[in-house]
């Protein structure tokens, strides 16, 4: 940010008089607002799309009352959530009860900061990008557990316990499945990972096609991430038909809204990470977006990134409306007995591959055969 601020001060002489820290602060605030607006818009539109997709899959119409074809439904829902009475149960632990939604929301929202939306569109290109995402999304588990405990409701407690066990268990395979992308790029920064998938190979430059292990790794990641973010078929913490609605059962109004938004935020983060680490991120096939004029390069790369990420989100919705739910012991068994060993073996495979073939992927080798 500071580098950007310096260049901005140089470029705009008007700012010359302002102290550097003020400009930096302004920039930080501005980018936070932009990311927050994007996140909220996505979460709103995402909820509408989810319901429309659900309607299509379930042979019904879906929301169609508010605005033309129901496209303003999410605004109506948002207004409803804000205006609703905020109920805190009499026996709840008031402080923790109020605190929990913020943990969940912040954990999910903070991850947006390092999402590489375009060639120059990233709020903060941290050099520990992936670690950062893993770390802040872990904050969600604290919030969920707090919500479950503070509600003083046994169903909520069960939901919270399930969520904690689940998120902690699945964090390991998620991390392990992402490491191949880190190994190939040689960097934890998401921008570096995306850049490493560029080049002249088009979509075959993607990590997905790098070698058989990365191909496998993508599916492992997607499965584990679905579980980590409590999506169907792993939506046990909020299993409606068993736990009524899980850890957020006692929440209403905007506090519930924060859980709701965080859920969609998590969905996008999973899709964005899958896109960035395996599906080439914002790289446009056969085009060096970095060399284009700033505006066009960014617009084009943003479009490509969002298209890929939304496609992933749609797949998640599709899965969500198709599959039944696992049982809690089956869920744990799946993580510790299958996903964790598989991701370890997979990681070993990728490492060996990179060692033996000097970091080259299959498409790269084929390309070099033809000069």
């Amino acid at each position: 940010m500071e580098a950007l601020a310096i260049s901005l001060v140089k470029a705009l002489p008007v700012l010359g008089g302002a102290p550097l820290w003020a400009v930096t602060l302004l920039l930080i605030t501005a980018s936070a607002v932009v990311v927050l607006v994007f996140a909220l818009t996505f979460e709103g539109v995402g909820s509408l799309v989810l319901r429309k997709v659900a309607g299509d899959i379930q042979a019904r119409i879906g929301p169609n009352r508010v605005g033309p074809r129901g496209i303003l439904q999410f605004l109506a829902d948002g207004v409803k959530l804000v205006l609703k009475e905020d109920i805190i149960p009499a026996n709840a632990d008031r402080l923790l009860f109020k605190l929990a939604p913020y943990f969940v929301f912040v954990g999910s929202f903070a991850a947006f900061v390092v999402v590489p939306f375009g060639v120059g569109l990233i709020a903060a290109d941290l050099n520990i990008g992936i670690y950062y995402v893993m770390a802040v999304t872990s904050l969600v588990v604290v919030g969920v557990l707090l919500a479950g405990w503070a509600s003083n409701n046994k169903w909520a407690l069960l939901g919270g316990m399930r969520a904690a066990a689940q998120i902690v268990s699945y964090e390991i395979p998620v991390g392990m499945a992402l490491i191949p992308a880190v190994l190939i790029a040689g960097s934890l920064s998401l921008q570096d990972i995306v850049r490493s998938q560029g080049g002249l190979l088009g979509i075959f430059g993607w990590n997905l096609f790098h070698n058989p292990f990365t191909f496998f790794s993508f599916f492992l990641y997607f499965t584990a991430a679905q579980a980590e973010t409590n999506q169907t078929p792993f939506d046990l913490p909020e299993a409606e038909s068993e736990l009524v609605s899980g850890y957020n059962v006692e929440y209403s109004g905007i506090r519930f809204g924060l859980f709701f938004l965080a859920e969609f935020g998590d969905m996008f983060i999973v899709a964005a990470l899958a896109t960035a680490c395996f599906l080439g991120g914002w790289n446009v096939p056969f085009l060096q977006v970095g060399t284009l004029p700033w505006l066009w390069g960014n617009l084009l790369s943003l479009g490509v990134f969002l298209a890929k990420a939304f496609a992933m989100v749609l797949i998640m919705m599709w899965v969500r409306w198709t599959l039944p739910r696992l049982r809690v012991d089956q869920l744990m068994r799946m993580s510790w007995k299958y996903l964790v060993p598989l991701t370890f073996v997979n990681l070993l495979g990728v490492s060996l591959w990179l060692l033996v073939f000097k970091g080259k992927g299959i498409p790269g080798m084929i390309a070099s055969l033809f000069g």
Partner: protein
Amino acid sequence: MTARSNALPTQEMTINMGPQHPSTHGVLRVILTTDGEVVTRAVPDVGYLHRGLEKIGERVTYAQYMPFTDRLDYLAAMNCNCAWAWTVEKLAKIEVPERAEYLRVIVCELNRISSHLIAFGSYTADMGAFTPFLYAIREREQVNDLFEMICGNRLTYNYARVGGVSGDAPPGFLEKTKEFLDYFEPKLDEYNNLISYNKIFVHRLANVAVIPAEEAIAYGLTGPNLRGSGVPFDLRKDEPYSVYPKFDFRVCVGTGERGTLGDCFDRYMVRINEMRESVKIVRQAIAQIPDGPVLAKVPRVFKPPVGETYFRSECPRGETGIYLISDGSVNPFRLKIRTGSFVTMNLFEKITRGLMIADVVAVIGSFDIILPEIDR
């Protein structure tokens, strides 16, 4: 669980499941005692929907009781209507016109289909797959349209009468029914492809809550719950009534195809297969239905002879037996109804011991209980 001396003291958690809970299929209350996620004890607490249906029977006439049988099992009101009509006819020895019996069988089997559709749909919804539920509702809607055509109602039909049915099938009803059957039969394969053999679904149901055949008989289970344990007992075959002997159909039993014989999956599959058999019966009934009147001559002030009778018929949720005593007046002297769901609940506490909370939901769904039948 006993706490070891140096470990944290633990205690079991008592959870109240219901009467308002999405998966208890109505106002069933279950008091769960759990050790974490494992249920150590699940005691059903029934009675929230008790409306004194049997006592009401002593205060109304035989014909007036017909609408109350709608409320006995609102998902299979036709079957309950007909059960009452058959009981009274058995008591008073009334000859029913054959066309009326055929119409009764047609609507009963259609209602069996729609009831099993709800059982199938809500079961998949309990298991977390919400989509098949709406597919089931879509199909059920068409059955409701047919019923609306024949009797004007969509849920509580009040269609049967002592001595026949309230009205003949309107023109086009039988054709429409045939159209529905042609549309519906392939849908069953679609359900099987979509959810029945889904790996997660099978894993959730197979080997859960196994009821061996001897136990099922000992506890008096009937209907699909008994047949799920592999006992081929179906009143339509074993104690034929109405015109059922004229139809060729198979008694579906559990086979233990994905797990142990008598598990939740078997009970689920029995219902899916029974829908196919019901389609078969309705097809044959439409092909064979004779012309003629649909209501026998029954005196307006109907007083059956003094006596008592017991009649049982195969309802979607098992055997519905009606024990009726007449003192020769216009009202029944005593009425007792034995329903499949109530008897099934006896086994509930035993079968859920040691299961997970999610399995309790699976067990309730696999029993396909309905609360007005339990509480009456």
